[in-house]
């Protein structure tokens, strides 16, 4: 196996919104390599639809403090309040900066950035929905991804496209390098560097019904977890209420922000029963549970009564065309339904990891409950856990998260590398990656990665989805451990070096197994219901015992151990979550 060596001040892994925003920040400040397994514009930031919230007050009265309150309440009080304050305050500058970068926001009649309603975002601490989401039709994420990529092109950012980072090297407790696999050649590349920022996105492909791209396999968190970095709050995984039936493709909350209504088999607007004030615009965890409850109690629609309707038929057709063109086209393409005249069958879909690599507000990764920083290690975006989303992220706050913390992480990393030398990197740091690749190629192939992945996804969707019990989680854990054992005998058909996706998919699968295991172990331990984590056997929130973040750590022997750290509070005391 050929091995190439590079040396950079800083490396960014991943080129979605967070990675690109970080790259803009380090450009001109330090020699940076952006290593990405996909061409940057293929990143899943581009699939985000509805908007990015910031209290610009362009359309109606608003304040960043109301945004902060909504974020904390939406996160069911597991949010670290100082971090969320940073995000909501800096949101305003972040949106204006994106506009200056060229982002084509929709405009108000007077030419300002237009704003619309979104789930869980309210005026004056829950009085009524507020127009806070800045948007570009229903392709806001696409516009953010394109705009940030454009700015990287303008800055001549150094991309290593279709290079997949598979391991990290530490020397004396600090980051010293990463090891990447080049898809076009099968060669390994060792990047000696002072600092690394991970921005690899989510890992929603551990679920069968998922809005996530095939490539969202948690490579960054997965490889760090394997190197002893803890994963925070893994039990909190968001299920978006409105995925296209069976396919899980996202239908933006903007559909409800524009006036769409959820209905059950008797055409009832059932959200009136669950959230009398904001109805269909309640936070995602509550809406997803409401839908699952309707289905479980026999009020679902369709042959198997396992879906409900998202009804847009009462909206003016021109509003649908102007504000929701993409998602209505998805419905036409995949369901053969005209959403202007017929309701859309939907079901909750695995969407977003609130948990991930623990970081502080500067994107620095922290290794324990004391806030100890790992020198040179950074993370931002969905793969990170700051924690600004707590137990349930509000809609639009992910796009906000990636630009605010991508920038902060990039800036902190650029500062860090000015003050430190390039660490020496031991010889042979690529040995583990090389061994994994060689083993997969050498295995006779009793087990196939594709079949194991499908088992994992089905199991997670059956047993660790919107509703969980100790029993369901224990059963899922048993299956995952069997799958991990079976993975030892996975073989691949493709033994070649050039674009061997058979190999990289198999490598990705091992990260998904580990992260699924961390998710289940964390979820089984948390004997309460909070945000997206709902336990039928412990259906209430338990602030006395559980106002704390989970840290899941993988031991050298593969065992998972849990520890906890307190939630960082602030002005807002936990209260009952009603909408």
């Amino acid at each position, binding site marked *: 196996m050929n091995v190439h060596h590079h040396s950079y001040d800083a490396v960014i892994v991943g080129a979605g919104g967070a990675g690109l925003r970080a790259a803009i920040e380090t450009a001109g400040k330090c020699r940076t390599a952006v290593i990405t397994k*996909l061409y940057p514009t293929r990143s899943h930031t581009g699939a985000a639809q509805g908007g990015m919230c910031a209290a610009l007050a362009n359309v109606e009265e608003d304040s960043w403090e109301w945004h902060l309150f909504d974020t904390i309440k939406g996160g069911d009080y597991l949010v670290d309040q100082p971090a969320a304050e940073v995000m909501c305050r800096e949101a305003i500058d972040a949106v204006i900066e994106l506009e*200056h970068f060229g982002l084509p926001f929709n405009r108000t009649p007077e030419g*300002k950035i237009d704003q619309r309603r979104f789930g869980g975002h309210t005026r004056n601490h829950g009085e009524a929905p507020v127009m806070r989401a800045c948007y570009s039709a229903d392709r806001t994420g696409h516009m953010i991804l394109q*705009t940030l990529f454009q700015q990287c092109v303008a800055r001549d950012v150094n991309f290593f496209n279709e290079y997949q980072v598979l391991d990290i090297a530490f020397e004396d407790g600090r980051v010293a390098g990463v090891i990447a696999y080049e898809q076009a050649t099968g060669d390994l590349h060792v990047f000696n560097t002072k600092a690394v920022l991970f921005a690899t996105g989510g890992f929603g492909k551990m679920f069968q019904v998922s809005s996530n791209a095939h490539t969202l396999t948690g490579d960054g968190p997965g490889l760090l977890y394997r190197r002893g970095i803890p994963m925070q709050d893994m039990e909190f995984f968001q299920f978006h209420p409105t995925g296209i039936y069976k396919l899980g493709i996202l239908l933006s909350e903007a559909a409800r922000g524009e006036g769409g209504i959820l209905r059950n088999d008797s055409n009832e607007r059932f959200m009136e029963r669950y959230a009398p004030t904001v109805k269909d615009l309640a936070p995602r965890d509550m809406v997803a549970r409401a839908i699952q409850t309707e289905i479980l109690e026999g009020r679902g629609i369709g042959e198997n009564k396992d879906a409900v309707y998202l009804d847009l038929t009462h909206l003016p057709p021109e509003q649908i065309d102007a504000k929701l063109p993409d998602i209505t086209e998805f419905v036409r393409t995949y369901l053969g339904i005209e959403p202007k005249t017929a309701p859309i069958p939907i079901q909750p879909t695995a969407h977003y990891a609130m948990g991930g690599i623990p970081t502080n507000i500067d994107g620095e990764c922290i290794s324990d409950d004391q806030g100890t920083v790992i020198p040179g290690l950074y993370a931002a975006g969905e793969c990170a856990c700051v924690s600004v989303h707590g137990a349930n992220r509000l809609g639009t706050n992910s796009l906000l998260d990636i630009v605010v913390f991508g920038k902060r992480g990039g800036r902190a990393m650029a500062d860090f590398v000015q003050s430190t030398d390039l660490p020496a990197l031991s010889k042979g740091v690529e040995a583990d990656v090389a061994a994994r690749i060689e083993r997969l190629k050498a295995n006779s192939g009793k087990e196939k990665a594709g*079949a194991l992945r499908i088992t994992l996804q089905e199991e997670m969707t059956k047993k660790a989805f919107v509703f969980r019990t100790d029993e369901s989680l224990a059963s899922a854990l048993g299956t995952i451990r069997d799958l991990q054992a079976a993975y030892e005998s996975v073989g691949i*058909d493709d033994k*070649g070096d050039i674009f061997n996706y058979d190999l990289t998919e198999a490598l990705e699968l091992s990260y998904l197994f580990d992260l699924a295991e961390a998710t289940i172990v964390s979820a089984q331990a948390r004997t309460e219901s909070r945000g997206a984590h709902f336990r039928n056997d412990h259906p209430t929130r338990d602030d006395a015992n559980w106002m704390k973040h989970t840290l899941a750590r993988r031991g050298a022997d593969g065992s998972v151990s849990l520890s906890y750290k307190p939630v960082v509070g602030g002005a807002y005391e936990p209260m009952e979550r009603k909408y």
Partner: protein
Amino acid sequence: MAKVQVELKVKRYNPETDKKPHWQEFTVEVEDTDRVLDALHVAKWTQDGTLTFRRSCAHGVCGSDAMVLNGANRLACLEIIKDVGTKITLEPIRGLPVIKDLVVDMEPFFAQYRSVLPYLINTSDPGYTERYQSAEDRARFDDTTKCILCAACTTSCPIYWGNSQYVGPAAIVNAHRFIFDSRDQATEQRLDILNQRSGVWKCRTAFNCSEACPRGIKVTQAIEEVKRAILYDRV
């Protein structure tokens, strides 16, 4: 929804073992509501792991899986079996070097994209607020903001097949997106670039690009608007 047998005929080429491309047929069982991409996955995951194609989002927004599907440039994730039928021919997009099976070298495509200055250029200080833009001005370039850089348009263009120096429809679309953005100040520079021999005048309005665009962008119209901007010096 019904189970169907699909015959996938894929043009394959592995540079490590093949001297030239060859066809291989796969018979897979899928739902008729599945995507062509799903059928490819069944073939790869259950029959032959060496079958190689790019994909990511699987719903037409990332632009990874452009290929020639029954003779036309399409995204495999946007085509439904019951719409395209059960006999499906797949080839790599044309005009870019084939690396392996359906994977082509995208670098020449992105180099052409970069050549048109695809980013907002505005040297005035906007101060602390957003630049204002009327809804009408915003609408001028709305269509071309939809581009996902999948290369379906460029690699459907007969001029591009014959002349890889031509910047191609996608690069022009991305230039158009800024040329007609009232906030941008580099219109002249971009029009100069596109007025060169490799620029818009290579276009012979074959309309293949518009037909190929999975995002429904009126590509030929965008190219015509750029041509008029060059001829009449106005946008």
